[in-house]
């Protein structure tokens, strides 16, 4: 059994986080809420997303897996305006998700979850950790987007920095410890990342929310932030690019 009711924004958050990476997702539903984990086909980025039961206005569920075509789901959710209350019910006879938006009932066929991967999250020792206001990172990534396809994120015990270099232009965002909500770093950390992936990652982030970035040297970054009115959590892993010779 799965029966839930939520504001459209909650479901749109889920779609915004997931759909840039994958077309098909397995929702792991339990009495605690919804969890999903997805890796993009090139294995460059992974997202682990949890929306707690409390984020929903109503939530009743047994443990089950729902295979969702994200393009289709996103298309359906575009029919909803923000503030709309959306009801989701699983129809186990037809293996469909019944989505009710106002007076509209849309039944969406689900995908067979057999054979859908359960990606493992790699264990990473990342010595640097910074808590930064999302708006700062969003601004930095937006600025870098215009001049390059990759940027460097670095930190030491006093400072967090984002740097991008194009053919003629550069972007630099430097935040000292007192401008940050938190910074711990054993020594210097620096890794390069693709801006395409970063900009997809920050799209669903609310600009006032804090964002936690874990960083190493030429290692993946782990970025964590809250969604669904802080009743949801996203962990995003992004593999680095290798420093050019």
């Amino acid at each position: 059994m799965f029966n839930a009711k939520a504001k459209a924004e909650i479901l749109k958050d889920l779609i915004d986080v997931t759909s840039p990476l994958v077309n098909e997702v397995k929702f792991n539903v339990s009495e605690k809420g919804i969890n999903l984990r997805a890796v993009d086909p090139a294995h460059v980025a992974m997202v682990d997303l949890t929306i707690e039961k409390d984020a929903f206005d109503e939530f009743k569920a047994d443990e089950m897996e729902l295979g969702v075509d994200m393009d289709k789901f996103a298309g359906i959710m575009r029919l909803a305006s923000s503030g709309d209350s959306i009801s989701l019910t699983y129809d186990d006879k037809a293996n469909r998700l019944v989505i009710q938006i106002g007076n509209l009932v849309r039944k969406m066929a689900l995908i067979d979850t057999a054979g859908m991967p359960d990606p493992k999250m790699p264990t990473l020792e990342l010595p640097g950790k910074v808590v930064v206001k999302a708006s700062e990172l969003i601004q930095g990534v937006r600025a870098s987007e215009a001049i390059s396809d990759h940027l460097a994120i670095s930190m030491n015990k006093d400072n967090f920095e984002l740097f991008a270099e194009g053919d003629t232009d550069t972007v630099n965002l430097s935040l000292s410890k007192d401008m940050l909500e938190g910074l711990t770093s054993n020594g210097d950390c620096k890794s390069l990342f693709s801006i395409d992936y970063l900009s997809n990652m920050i799209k669903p982030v609310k600009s006032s929310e804090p964002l936690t970035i874990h960083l190493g040297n030429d290692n993946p970054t782990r970025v964590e932030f809250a969604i669904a009115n802080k009743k949801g959590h996203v962990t995003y892993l992004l593999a680095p690019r290798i420093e050019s010779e």
Partner: protein
Amino acid sequence: MTQKKNVVEIIQYPSASEAKSFIEKHHLKKPEKTILQIIGSCTVDYRGRAKSVLDWGERFIIIKPDGNLMVHQPVLREPINWQPAGSTTEFRVDDELFIVYSRHRKPSEKMIISFKEIFSIVICELKDTAQLKIVGMESDVVNHIIKDPSCVEDGLRIHKQEKQVDSGMIDLFAYDKSHTPVIIEVKRSLATISNVHQLRMYVNDMRHESESANVRGILCAPRIPDMIKNLLLDYNLEWKKVEHEIVLPDDKQKTLTDF
């Protein structure tokens, strides 16, 4: 990056005769190497497989070294009119008008573009041998199998790509190691019920055609749900999970599996 010099020649607002001598100087000496763009106000008359007349308008003409000619209006992706590869182009001045006359034999097609005003002519020599690389297409999976038929089955020999039968086009036609004909249907993503029926029809067609009762059908896709597998079993068909290669943006991008 160092910019190579003298690759582009530009003239703005030439008269008809200035346009003609500019094109003679920079394009007609080596039309097989230079791309010519003319922007201006013109009419286009076409006689060939059909007849068409395009009244005065401001548009963009591109003539490529292979003879392709395209007339582009300010909007739309496709040209409003064009001449195929192998066309030859002449340039004339008639009264105050500058005339571009493009001709193609077999089928015979003529196009006359008359400019009353030219805003700009750009002539450039471009080097580009790169080919578009698209991933995630069905053909990626097909090519993957052609390159390495053993990913479907040991001893498989691909005989033909795209073989026509009554009910459609077979993706790959092969023989297995005991010389039994094998029909391979390829999907780039999730296999569906209609793929099963498609394969079933191909196999039936092939059995009639070759009068051999023994024809195998294999559905190849990156993901095949259990329901589809059961359906395939019902029809005595087979399946094989075949993934297409995922290409990273470039070799500097690492993947999470590296860690």
